[in-house]
């Protein structure tokens, strides 16, 4: 059987769609939004401070640094 959508069903779905534009719904969502968002404010501030410090491949660099540190410790301990 073809994957083509059924034309009759397409029509039924399209015809039965109706606008549900309701100011009360928006007001209800607005009323449930938290008044203050400490987490969001802190996140935005920290993000702004840290963004210029971001490096590409930061995880790779961190792994490399860790490897070098371990290697140095092994070298020192073997002396």
């Amino acid at each position, binding site marked *: 059987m073809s994957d083509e*959508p059924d034309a009759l069903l397409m029509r039924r779905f399209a015809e039965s769609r109706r606008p549900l534009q309701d100011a009360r719904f*928006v007001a209800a969502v607005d009323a449930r939004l938290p008044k203050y968002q400490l987490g969001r404010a802190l996140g935005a501030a920290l993000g702004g401070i840290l963004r210029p410090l971001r490096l590409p491949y930061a995880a790779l660099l961190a792994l490399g640094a860790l490897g070098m540190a371990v290697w140095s410790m092994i070298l020192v301990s073997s002396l």
Partner: protein
Amino acid sequence: MRSSARFGDAAEAVVVALAAGGDREAFCELVWRRQSWLRNLLRRLCRDPALADDLAQQVFLKAWRSLAQLKSPAAFGGWLRRLAINAWLAQARSAGPDVVSFDPEDLPAATFIPSAAEELDLDRALARLACDERLCIVLAYNEGLSHGEISAATALPLGTVKSHIRRGAERLRVLLDAYHPDEKEHAHVG
């Protein structure tokens, strides 16, 4: 609360970027613009319009909390749809096993004349499909998504999506024919 004059015809991506920065008014503008689509989608999935609206509110609240994580403002619609699907699936799972019987014998007699609007019949027919089948059918016919997009949005294998849509569409046709027995003839004539 209506669409804010501040945003006028501003592109959605711009409003999303403002909302992601914590602009509450911008977020309410997004709720205004997207509510009809989201509530229609959830009403198709839920059997209860009040529950659908409650879920829609929860989806918008979740969107407000996690909007900063959205990488591309242009992807807002798809992201919101995924939140809605997840919210509905969580609700459906918590409601217990999907007990749906599909027995054409249960359907109304051919003389049944619906007094309600056509959409009621479509919703009643949809409500008789199993959860996953209904989800795939709604995403295909209500949202116009391709099988691949549905598979990505629902995390169902592509083959499963295809069979859900094929079987679901077949069942839906039988159910709708039962509500409107003359429709089939018109479709064939057309």
